[in-house]
């Protein structure tokens, strides 16, 4: 029953997945012969992360009625901020980022899940701070 701890864990996990996905990207091309297989694996990982964070963890944290209300509110607001973020990224995808040897256009899709987790956690912290 501690929403703050939940968002803290979510933020750490979001940053961790961001590093893992970045590491995979920097080290090499995906070690898969076919691109669809690589994408499928990413999809499975994303679903698993989503399940453990938003389905299992929420049940284990046993949020009370006020916390559930704040959690829903966080979801709604973070969806809005996430869509805004996606629009910004969409318009920035043509920017030349050759100094890091990575094309934003080809890679940003892989970071959707960690970005959402971070966005959700930060929104949660802001809402908790405002409510208190």
């Amino acid at each position: 029953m501690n929403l703050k701890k939940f968002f803290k864990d979510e933020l750490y996990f979001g940053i961790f997945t961001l590093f893992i996905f970045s590491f995979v990207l920097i080290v090499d091309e995906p070690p898969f012969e076919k691109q669809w297989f690589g994408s499928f694996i990413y999809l499975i990982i994303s679903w698993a992360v989503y399940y453990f964070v938003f389905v299992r963890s929420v049940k284990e944290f046993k949020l009370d009625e006020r916390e559930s209300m704040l959690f829903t509110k966080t979801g709604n607001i973070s969806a809005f901020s996430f869509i805004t973020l996606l629009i910004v990224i969409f318009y920035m995808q043509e920017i030349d980022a050759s100094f890091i040897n990575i094309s934003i256009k080809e890679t940003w899709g892989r970071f959707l899940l960690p970005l959402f987790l971070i966005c959700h956690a930060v929104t949660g912290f802001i809402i908790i701070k405002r409510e208190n």
Partner: protein
Amino acid sequence: MKNNLHVLRAEKRLSQDDLAKLVDVSRQTINAIEREKYDPSLPLALKIAKVFNKKVEEIFFLED
């Protein structure tokens, strides 16, 4: 909605944490109710009333 939860809790010498455990919510929720930042649901209000052995309207009331 106003309430006199703080007074009742002091009379019974219960901490926010004690009351939270009795009604199965977080301490922060009790704190939010006392500071009138959150209005509890009817089941939670009934649970709180039961702890203090009072009617709901004796604890929670509308501001005139």
